[in-house]
């Protein structure tokens, strides 16, 4: 290998190494049979078992999954509809809508969290499940819109028209033609939303209350107290779950030849 190529490969490996090293260390130490030290003492599943014995943790995990699934579903519904409408129609306020979606996607999490908190407070809504759900749906929508829009832009412009020409109403045309073709993108959008929701810290931080605990916030409060193998195990599980979801989503978004 020429020195130039060697240098290039080395650089790539270095950066990849940087990206993955901490995670790998985390995963490895979740199996380490040592509570406080980082000396390697052998493989164990103790920490994982401990997780299962912690009812609060399990409840938080369940809550997270519930919120993620619900918000992903609603966000996918709204987002897919929005993407079809943006692609197909001209309407009053369209640039404003597109701008809003873009701004929503770009807004720093903390600003979104604060803004929503102020909204909920001014409506005197108690912080908990419902406020969390509304917030998650909101920040998921732009990602679904972008995912679906990029797929729908590849369609023949006249497909919907052809369906109407043949006698279908707009609803029927969307149901029978557009939706089936968009399914991979819609599913990918759902998976990405689920992931975003599961991992969200900053928005959730401001809009949830003590009555409804979710996993990332639990990890955060635990982590502030220090490193423990249980947290390692928990984080490893979360990483694993995210990894699987992302892989599936990427497979769905791959262009079919």
């Amino acid at each position, binding site marked *: 290998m020429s020195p130039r190529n060697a240098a*290039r490969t080395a*650089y*790539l490996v270095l950066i990849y190494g*940087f*990206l*993955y*090293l*901490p995670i790998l*260390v*985390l995963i490895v130490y979740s199996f380490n049979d040592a509570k406080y030290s*980082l*000396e390697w003492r052998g493989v164990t599943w103790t920490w994982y078992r401990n997780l299962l014995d912690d009812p609060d943790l399990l409840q938080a995990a369940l809550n997270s999954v519930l919120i993620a699934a619900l918000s992903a579903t609603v966000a996918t519904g*709204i*987002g897919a*509809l*929005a993407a*079809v*409408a943006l692609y197909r*129609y001209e309407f009053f*306020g369209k640039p404003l*809508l597109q701008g*809003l*979606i873009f701004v*929503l996607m*770009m807004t*720093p*999490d*903390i*600003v*979104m969290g*604060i*803004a929503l*908190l*102020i*909204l909920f*407070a001014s409506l005197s809504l108690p912080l908990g499940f419902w406020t969390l759900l509304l917030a998650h749906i*909101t920040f998921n*929508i732009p990602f679904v819109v972008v995912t679906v829009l990029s797929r729908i832009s590849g369609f023949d412009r006249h497909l919907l028209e052809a369906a109407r020409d043949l006698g279908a*109403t*707009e*609803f029927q045309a*969307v149901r029978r033609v557009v939706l089936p073709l968009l399914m991979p993108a819609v599913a990918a959008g759902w998976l990405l939303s689920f992931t*975003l929701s599961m*991992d969200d*810290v*900053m928005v959730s931080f401001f809009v949830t209350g003590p009555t409804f605990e979710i996993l*990332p916030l639990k*990890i*955060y409060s635990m*982590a502030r107290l220090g*490193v423990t193998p249980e*947290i*390692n195990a928990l*984080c490893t599980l*979360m990483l694993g779950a*995210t*990894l699987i979801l*992302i892989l599936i989503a*990427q497979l769905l978004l*791959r262009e079919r030849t």
Partner: protein
Amino acid sequence: MRRKEPFKLTAVGVIGFWLTAFALLPNLLLVVASLLERGGDEFVALILTLDNYRRLFDPLYLGVLLDSLWLAAATTLLCLLLGYPFAYLLTRMPARWRPLLLLLVIVPFWTSSLVRTYAMVILLQTNGWLNQLLLDLGWIAEPLELLYTESAVIAGMLYALLPFMILPLYAVLEKLDRRLIEAARDLGAGWITIFRRIILPLTLPGIVAGCLLTFLPGLGMFYVADLLGGARAMLVGNLIRDQFLSARDWPFGAAASVLLTVLMGFLLWAYYLSARRANRGALP
């Protein structure tokens, strides 16, 4: 006379309503709140004031702001310096490897940055992995105090945000027409000239996008500062959080948030300008 189109009305109505209620309205309220006074029992008192913005320029808070800006900027710059060559090299890899290589960047992009920041803690602890390694190698005699320093926070943010810089850079570098570079070389230009006058201007939108995606979160990521910087690190993100949770000074926190938003607006405008410039100069 216009035909009614139920589907269009439904779709546009739903998204329009949701965004107005949960995106437009909260931000308007945010701005309004920043102009009010803090309340006693209530979170805000309905009295208009510019005090909150004035307080932002108080040396104490100004210091926090400048610190955050400095940290976020340093992180962004590092991300750019490390990420640009990386993204470029990725585009030069054989086509059949690229999907996999790209996936390896996307995975950290989507995984929880909280988890990844926590992983950083394990690495940098006094009895952490890095120190163990250095001790074992004999490079140091005593463990280094890596945590709870500014460098740790930068390292943590760098780690969390690097993928956000790489992906937009990759997207724009991939679209770069190789033939332009060949044409320049054919005309006798050296590499520095080629970079400065062709590659850089054409990839500018990607650079600005990457900076947007790293700088703004960098200002707000209070959990990185918490976990890696400890009590000593007070950044804008932490400031805002404290105002809302501990100090209960919502208007002040809102003002700081609005400041962040204005910054974002400014960067978005820079992005828009750079994209327009790149498009104007682009070949048909």
